[in-house]
């Protein structure tokens, strides 16, 4: 079984963005960029490495600390090329990875976790959502050991993911199968995780959506002056939620999202259902 603690994340950022007309990786997203949001979201979900696969010579926006960048050796071979490069770069460091494109502005950790749980069966090579009317090979799980097979298929001129799926064990997850997961059903009932933005109108529509509802609570000295207890605000990033409740993310303050890592990174992406705790950095007793 692949535990989340072992799984990796791979973001394929090398697409040409021809329909968008400008690089999707660098599109602004609530004070950050789409690529930074996607990589940061994977970083807060998996414990293994998070990789960005870029096109040769591609300029990337700033990435969160710890995210690795690998470059495709050749350009123009599509996502299969990026998949091969990313899986090979993982090597022995992770048995499987959630692999996605950079343009999933509503990707939710609950979907990533659900997909990766598909590797509970050791015989499964690919966990493939088939939802919202499409196969979703760029929001899917791949076993790292597929790297050689993908490379071989590329060498034979097979550039489509569909060819890969003919040669390995694929578990497909339709809408119902995905939403049978209670966390995913609660946190992303419309499977917006799989919404991608290909054209300027898609992007504009995505940006126009309300920011996610998150629950924020202040603790200790930060809660004095009648600021105790949880409250709900709309915010897409830690910086936005701090601003919404009047907290400066200085060295005396840290935050944790859902009881996980401590951070004061204002660009940390938030998703629906997140609970943000702000507390004094001067812990001790």
């Amino acid at each position, binding site marked *: 079984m692949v535990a989340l603690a072992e799984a990796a994340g791979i973001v394929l950022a090398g697409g040409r963005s021809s329909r968008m007309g400008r690089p999707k990786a660098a599109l602004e997203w609530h004070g950050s960029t789409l690529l930074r949001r996607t990589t940061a979201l994977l970083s807060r979900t998996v414990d293994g490495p998070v990789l960005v696969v870029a096109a040769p010579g591609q300029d990337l926006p700033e990435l969160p600390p710890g995210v690795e960048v690998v470059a495709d050796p050749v350009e123009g071979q599509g996502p299969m090329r990026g998949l091969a490069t990313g899986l090979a770069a993982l090597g022995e460091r992770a048995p499987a990875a959630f692999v996605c494109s950079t343009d999933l502005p509503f990707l939710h950790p609950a979907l990533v976790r659900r997909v990766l749980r598909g590797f509970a069966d050791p015989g499964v090579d690919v966990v493939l959502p088939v939802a919202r009317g499409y196969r979703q090979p760029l929001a899917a799980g791949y076993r790292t050991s597929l790297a050689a097979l993908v490379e071989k298929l590329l060498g034979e001129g097979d550039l489509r993911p569909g060819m890969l799926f003919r040669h390995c064990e694929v578990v497909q997850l339709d809408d119902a199968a995905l939403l049978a997961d209670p966390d995913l059903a609660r946190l992303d009932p419309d499977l917006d995780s799989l919404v991608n933005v290909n054209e300027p109108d898609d992007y504009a529509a995505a940006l126009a959506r309300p920011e996610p509802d998150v629950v924020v609570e202040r603790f200790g000295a930060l809660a004095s002056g009648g600021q105790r207890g949880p409250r709900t605000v709309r915010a897409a990033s830690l910086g936005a939620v701090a601003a919404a409740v009047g907290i400066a993310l200085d060295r*005396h303050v840290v935050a944790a*999202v*859902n009881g996980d*890592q401590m951070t004061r*990174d204002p660009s940390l992406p938030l998703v629906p259902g997140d*609970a943000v705790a702000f507390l004094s950095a*001067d*812990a001790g*007793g």
Partner: protein
Amino acid sequence: MPAGGYFGRALVVDVADSGATSAPLPLDDAVLRAYLGGVGLGTWLLHRLGRAGADPLGADAPLAFVFSPLVGTPLTTSAKFAVVAKSPLTGLLTDALASSRFAIAGKLTGNDAIVVRGRAAELSVLLVDGDGARLEPAPELTGLPAARTEDAVRERFGRGWQTAAIGPAGERGVRYATISHDGRHAGRGGLGAVLGAKNIKAVLVRSATRVDVADQAAVLAAAKDLRARSFGPATAKYRELGTLANLLAFNAVSTLPTRNFTEVTFEGAPRLAAEELHELRGVARNSCASCSIGCEHIYSRKGGGSQRMEYENVFALGPLCGVSDPDDVFAASARCDELGLDTISAGGTVAWAMECAERGLIDAPWLRFGDGPALLRALDMIGSREPGLGELLAQGSRRAAEVVGGGSIDFAPQVKGMELPGYEPRTLQAMALGLAVNARGADHNRSGAYEADLSGEHDRLNGGAAQVVAAIGTEDRAAVMDSMILCKFLRGVFDDPFTEWAALLRPVTGWDVDADELRATARRIVLAKRVFNQREGATAADDTLPRRMLETPLRLGSGRVAALTADRLGAMVAGYYAQRGLDERGRASREAEGALLLEGHTTENSPHGT
């Protein structure tokens, strides 16, 4: 002439059937500069005066009250003293700090430390002032709580004396009994049992002299500046809510040990939170002498009276035992104060016993997680060392687990025999290392590595090389703060700690001490503790955590799993050894030992020499 802030001597008091005799032990400038005071100087004294392999509850075991160069100056939070001895709980070095007027009066007896050895014929009090030491029989104090003892000796000897006393648990040799002064405990490691084994109920000190500093005007200026800084945001938490502010915050970040470390969040945490209690029950705020922070928060108790509450006693007697009723936790904390019990070890040991009872490993069906009255009953049994369960639990969780067996050592919440404080090692993995390698055992005051975990600058779920560096840094800073001595609640006000601490020491002592020298001092103190423990038989096998922490992952609210494996901890411990200049077994080299100014003592007692 000694350096400013010092008298250049310790008073070594031998008590015996015939009374007390005392003699000064000269402390030369090199030793004082190398170890400063507090836990540093106490460690050196234990090396010098303690026999290797001695029974910590034996007559010849020394117990040292150690002051510091800053005591008596107007520097905020400097009125603190260390108590240092070989621990009956761990069999290794233990050092604990307490505060307030005992520190000032003790130092102004004209001594940088007061060391007590021997055993009195009957329960007595030891009085030390400018004329030396004398022993007064005090059988009437038998069984009194420390606070009432302080009242009684004040009545008997007058108000000029300051008192450090033990409660009934110390008299009866409970291995985690405390010594306390004015309601504040030198809590960890069973120092109260060491004093009790000497048949000494209390040590009374009275000022007899003054101590000079090198540059009075500069000290006053530094004190004014430090006091102003002590009112800033770095101490806001302590002023406004006290350490109990940790409870709800730690619950929110999955690091509140619950039901003997089986969970990291506690559903009853809101009832015990400082935020809640402050509104409903807060009655007063208090501070130690010479302190401008005022971290002590006093709450009203149901049925009358009040109780000072800190994070560690609420954690240990609340979530760790599954108890959520604040009145039960207040009562248990008050009971520990009355008995003179370390709340962390008491709570940890009872929580372990609750789990044993629920698993059928011990025959105490009444002892269940969440049962406040059962917790109180267990504490009373411990304090009186009631035959059976009370006697068993009075030994601490490690010894008790060795008796009970059944794999219960795997979930005994201890390192080196000392019960874990309220920081979950699996979700605070720099702290996991700090807890594993610290000389005192599982301890949050000599290793504050949780600072790194909670800083937002490290992956707290994935300990590695960065956490090793961080843990060593906090251990070094603690070594200096606990030796010079300043309260750690001030630590956040220092931007460049070693440089700023050197700047405080210079006008007090007259030394040209700088940051690099203090860093070396820190390393020396940490190493001296480790060498003491090696002398007493500690090995690398002691630098670990209970199996539960290494084999049972925790699931967080985020969906991620917090796992700390033996391999990961082992790699961090190996990194710690390497960076501390120790060999792969965690041992110091002869050369390093030779630089500890132990004057041949370690050669005589060291395993190297036998």
